[in-house]
């Protein structure tokens, strides 16, 4: 008995076959891919190239790592990194905690009431950050602000919330964490609702108390949501800009300047696109590193 081996199809043949099979798929995604390449991929690639150039209005020259070396010796750059890191760490921790607590608190309520609360907590997400920042400026106003009014009611001295360089950054952190993130509440609430009741019933039979159920059932099963929210909030935390820009402009004494604000100033006040791109690349590397670490420690195979 002889065995006939079919000839191996050539590369061209395989491409033609692939094209015949998938051409319409590519045709339909082409518009969005073209837009993606023009407005996302190309600018990102260009920023990468610019980071190694000195860019003037009508010319640019290769400067190698000079932009990065300059940043290394810039006190302002490192202080903005420090402010951004403090802000991001505090805000991510506070947002994860507050959204988890709020989601847990509304979980036992009826579906209608839950929806009402979810909507209420989500409302600030659809409000312009500019308006929120302006409201906080009023709350922190030294003479007529709401916080100082409360302090004077209980006989405490007024605080220069945004004018004192030692506390301005903490005031901005406070203004951020006092608003419970609606997206976190909604996602945690949905994730908690999806945990099968049988697990809790089984733990009741085993005699587990509320804390044990929380630590050994709820938290582990919420890990995928926690990972997602931590990554998203970390990125948002590192990209803080509008709130600081409006509330303090980075002052006083540069005590609230963040990295994105510095990038903005370098690019659009100084028009030093090379250096601004280098700053942006470093920010990208930091966010990528944090996200990698978070994936490493929080990722899970749990499915339910």
């Amino acid at each position: 008995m002889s065995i006939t081996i079919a000839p191996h199809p050539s590369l061209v043949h395989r491409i033609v076959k692939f094209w015949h099979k998938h051409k319409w798929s590519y045709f339909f995604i082409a518009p969005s891919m073209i837009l993606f390449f023009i407005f996302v991929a190309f600018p990102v690639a260009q920023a990468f190239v610019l980071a190694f150039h000195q860019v003037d209005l009508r010319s640019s020259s290769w400067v190698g790592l000079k932009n990065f070396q300059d940043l290394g010796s810039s006190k302002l750059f490192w202080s903005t990194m420090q402010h951004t890191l403090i802000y991001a760490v505090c805000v991510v921790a506070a947002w994860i905690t507050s959204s988890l607590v709020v989601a847990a608190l509304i979980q036992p309520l009826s579906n209608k009431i839950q929806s009402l609360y979810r909507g209420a907590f989500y409302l600030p997400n659809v409000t312009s950050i500019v308006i929120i920042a302006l409201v906080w400026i009023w709350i922190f106003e030294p003479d007529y602000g709401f916080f100082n009014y409360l302090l004077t009611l209980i006989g405490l001295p007024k605080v220069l919330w945004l004018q004192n360089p030692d506390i301005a950054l903490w005031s901005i952190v406070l203004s951020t964490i006092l608003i419970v993130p609606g997206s976190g509440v909604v996602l945690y609430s949905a994730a908690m609702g999806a945990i099968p009741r049988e697990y809790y019933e089984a733990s009741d039979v085993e005699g587990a108390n509320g804390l044990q159920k929380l630590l050994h059932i709820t938290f582990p099963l919420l890990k995928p949501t926690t990972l997602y929210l931590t990554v998203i909030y970390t990125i948002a935390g590192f990209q803080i800009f509008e709130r600081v820009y409006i509330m303090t402009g980075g002052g006083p004494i540069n005590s609230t300047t963040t990295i994105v604000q510095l990038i903005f100033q370098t690019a659009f006040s100084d028009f030093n696109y090379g250096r601004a791109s280098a700053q942006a690349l470093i920010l990208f590397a930091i966010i990528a590193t944090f996200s990698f670490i978070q994936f490493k420690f929080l990722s899970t195979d749990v499915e339910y």
Partner: protein
Amino acid sequence: MKRLIVLIVVLALAAIWLIACAAPTTAPKSAEPTKAPAQPVTLVFYQRGYTAGGTDAGTVNTDKAVEIFQKNNPNIKINIVGIPWTAEGDTKLEAALAAKTDINVFRVTSPNLPRYAKQGILSEITPFLTEEDKKDFYPSGFQIATIDGKVWAWPLWVTAISNFVNTDILKERGVEPPTMAKPWTWDQFVEACKKLTYKKADGTQVYGFSSSSKWGAVEYYPLMYIDGGRILSADGKKFVQNSPEGASALQKIAELALVHKCTPPDFGTVDQAGVRAQFKDRKTVAILMSTPGFIPDLEKENFPLAVTPPPLGALNKMVTNGAFGLFAVVNVGDQAKLKAAHELAKYLTGSQVAKDIQGWQLAPGLRRSNTGYSTNANREVIAKLVEFGVYEAPVATSAELGNNYGAALQAIILGKKTAKQAMDEIAPDYQKELDALSK
């Protein structure tokens, strides 16, 4: 498959139709010129704050100015491109200059002037100045536009900073405002500020003095010069504010808040909008150091206002400072276009445009012949202050240095550092950049 082909054909036809609709229509032919053009030239004029078809005063005045210029120069046609007074406007302008698109005349901001000049973007104005022009301009006008000994922009006006006084508050506290003939000394100014810091019968706290002093604000800058100090040496090559006369003036500003306690708690961090609201709306500030841009708002509301000169310091001479309005011309190879562009810039910064268009002059002009701004006693004070202007040589330092310098000023006002300490600390970085620019 058949349906799909039909769909694609329909989509393609729709796309062609849309492109056809979006294609520029033929521009309407301009009115016949009164004089046959010898060599027709079209200029593109980038104007800040201009909105095509807009009804705001800036837009209307720009349209009128261009209309009159075109009427007087029938061979020159002007296309106006409006850009906002924000970072967005800066970016659009930068993009236009970088792309070498059609741009001939534009409002240039002082911090960007040296960079544009050094990068060969601008056309020098000196060859287009007549002897009459040279005599007419105040020397300070050329000083701010001079880089490496050449003048790179047509000076329009300067927002000469002065002290705005709420006359009701001064009357209530029995304080006589100073005048150009009899300005306050520093001690008199401090005494007045202390007297004007008080609590009203209704419990409202009034403060003697304030000024926009957030990072980057320049409205209190005249006080920096009253003892004879300045930021840079006259040639712009040395940082000199750590000199005794530079530091003493800065220390005086800080002492208004720290020692004399006659400024609001946010002095040192308050922005322009905030401090103007304190002065105009809340009436919690008696004396405000500010720019002429605020005058129309106050006049519109019949605010009890007296414009007064800044106090005298150790220099014993009146001093003001402010931002310049400048028109620059882009360097292009076409000589006819270049000449026409300079003609336009010259008209827009001249005394004739101020006569042609009421309200054109938002700040005092930099030509002696231009008296269009002095329409009442308060404006007259501002116009007279122009000749007492002290201005820094234009240098293109980095935004980071600007940031650190602004932070150093805030540190002094907020009492975190003495003036001498803060200026000594920033001096090496400042000098390093100046040295690099001089190379």
